[in-house]
């Protein structure tokens, strides 16, 4: 079931949580709403779910306007950030809840409910925990129960609010892959909210980057990462070094506070050399080296006393024999410049990118 959000605005008192948001989510896709806290991503998700109602604008499911429908009528599966499992019910009862509360006419017979719940328990690999209470489960297990409970009612869309936010790094990684596999199997239109850009890029078919109640850019992970539409998107997706400079005759000047525009360079696109190579470069002094991990992270201080971050491979690092307090030349392999107006243009309503 495709989802379409048209011109949705939502105020909480004097705070504008959503500002004329447009978003199109094709059927069967896994979509991430990515943004910092306060960017309106959870509000948007709750409006799609019918837990919150927009002040203006419309929500459509499969081309049908459902703006005025209640959460109950929308048939969405919602997974809450803190799972919101029914604490006085066992795992089995939690998953069966949505089926048991159906009106008599459409309620499946007891035997069928049991079968369905057992299928879901198998899907989330918790067959042996059916009789346990939520308080007796680990965070990852609770998350899976919450997911099974949402899927039990065969929702038209699945909505997840920070689904991995409360889990530790390792469990998060496992659950992420598990959710991706699950989505590939079930193919239900899914939207999840996250502030973790890595999670969004790894998991989603489509990423909508949100900031201050607007969608800055919506596109494939490749699009938003490699072709960011605004300085905010560029900044938010991955580490970045920010300079104020200008480009004259193909040569980049990195330090020009007066007339400079913001210049962005990703840490892995900065090259460290011992000699000046004649191109656009600047000097720096190595201040910190972190060689743990697949990439070596180096911090250098520039001539104008700014800190820049550089990432290089272990091989490059070995070949260079870098040491602290060593003076080096830094050359960007690629720079991204946004016109100052560009940074602001996100405030206009931007039509969503078609996938």
């Amino acid at each position, binding site marked *: 079931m495709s989802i379409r959000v048209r011109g949705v605005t939502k105020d909480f008192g004097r705070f504008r949580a959503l500002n004329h948001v447009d978003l199109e989510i094709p059927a069967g896709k896994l979509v991430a709403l990515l943004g910092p806290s306060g960017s309106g991503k959870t509000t948007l998700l709750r409006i799609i779910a019918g837990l919150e109602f927009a002040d203006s604008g419309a929500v459509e499911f499969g081309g049908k306007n459902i703006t005025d429908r209640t959460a109950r009528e929308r048939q969405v599966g*919602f997974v809450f950030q803190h799972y919101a499992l029914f604490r006085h019910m066992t795992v089995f009862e939690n998953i069966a809840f949505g089926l048991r509360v159906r009106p008599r006419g459409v309620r499946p017979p007891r035997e069928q409910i049991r079968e369905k719940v057992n299928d879901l328990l198998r899907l989330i690999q918790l067959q042996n925990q059916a009789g346990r209470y939520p308080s007796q489960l680990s965070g990852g297990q609770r998350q899976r129960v919450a997911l099974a409970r949402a899927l039990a009612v065969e929702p038209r869309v699945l909505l997840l609010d920070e689904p991995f936010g409360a889990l530790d790094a390792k469990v998060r990684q496992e659950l992420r892959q598990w959710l991706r596999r699950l989505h590939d199997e079930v193919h239900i239109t899914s939207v999840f909210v996250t502030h973790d850009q890595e999670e969004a890029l790894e998991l989603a078919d489509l990423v909508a980057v949100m900031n201050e109640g607007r969608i800055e850019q919506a596109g494939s992970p490749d699009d938003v990462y490699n072709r960011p539409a605004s300085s905010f998107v560029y900044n938010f997706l991955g580490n970045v070094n920010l300079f104020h400079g200008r480009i004259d005759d193909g040569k980049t000047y990195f330090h020009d506070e007066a007339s400079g525009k913001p210049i962005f360079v990703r840490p892995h696109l900065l090259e460290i050399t011992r000699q000046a190579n004649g191109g656009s470069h600047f000097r720096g002094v190595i201040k910190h080296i972190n060689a743990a991990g697949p990439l070596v992270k180096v911090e250098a201080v520039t001539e104008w006393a700014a800190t820049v971050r550089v990432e290089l491979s272990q091989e490059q690092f070995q070949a260079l024999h870098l040491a602290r307090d060593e003076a080096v030349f830094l050359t960007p392999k690629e720079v991204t410049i946004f016109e100052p107006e560009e940074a602001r243009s996100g405030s206009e309503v931007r039509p969503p990118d078609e996938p």
Partner: protein
Amino acid sequence: MSTATLSPLDLAAGTGAACRATSEPAAVRWALIAIAVLFLGIFLFLPLGVVFYTALGDGVRAYLRTFGDPDTQSAIRLTLLAAGIAVPLNAVFGIAAAWAIGKFDFTGKTVLITLIDLPFSVSPVVSGLIYVLLFGLQGLLGPWLIAHDIRIIFAVPGIVLATIFVTFPFVARELLPTMEAQGNDEEEAALTLGASGWQTFFRVTLPNVKWALIYGVILCNARAMGEFGAVSVVSGHIRGLTDTMPLHIEVLYNDYQFVPAFAVASLLALLALATLVVKSAVEWKSREQARRAETTNREMPA
């Protein structure tokens, strides 16, 4: 697993050390305990002992004979009736008020919370007087009531009304913190799963506040049975008709019928003691549940 079983022990050891660091010398501790015990003894155990001692002063037979008296039986019945009406009504009101306040935001919320506390802060005598001024002969609605031959003051309805008024904060006050702490998440989850409002209430909200509700009902019941001041004002002390147990005790005592007076008092005291036992059991049970949930959480980290 070994670290998991160790951790509660470590925790206990930690709190033990903290206790020792803040603990006083033995003499101070014993002095404090002695003061507490003495105080309790003089003001609580001694009077309670006297009640039972005097009640049984003329032997068990005289004690039991008191309860054969029709006036006493009527007083017991009236007390049970008043509590039987006031407690369920206040339970419903308490749930509704706590639900509204705990789960929704609306203007006038703080005013409502303050109003719920009114019976706690107003003297019971004033509470009774309110009804006399409202329904009494010279009261606001008095003439109309007389014209329609409805008796409220100096009759059973007045006693029930006064009891309801005096006891209505108990359930709401117990439920409010629990409901507020639990938030709306589970209700919202039920809603998205297709549950109706009533289904959400009966299957999710109510079971979650079960213990707080039982606790509130127990306290409410204890007060409803023991209320004297407000009921005394509206009752008119008509023997066998409008005397509740506390009022009946006073009447008997003023008639120098000490054994019957203390016998009825002992029954009331027994009811109170039974209430306390049930209350402690409920407290223990709910704490036990919370503790079990917590330890299982600690044993199984995410």
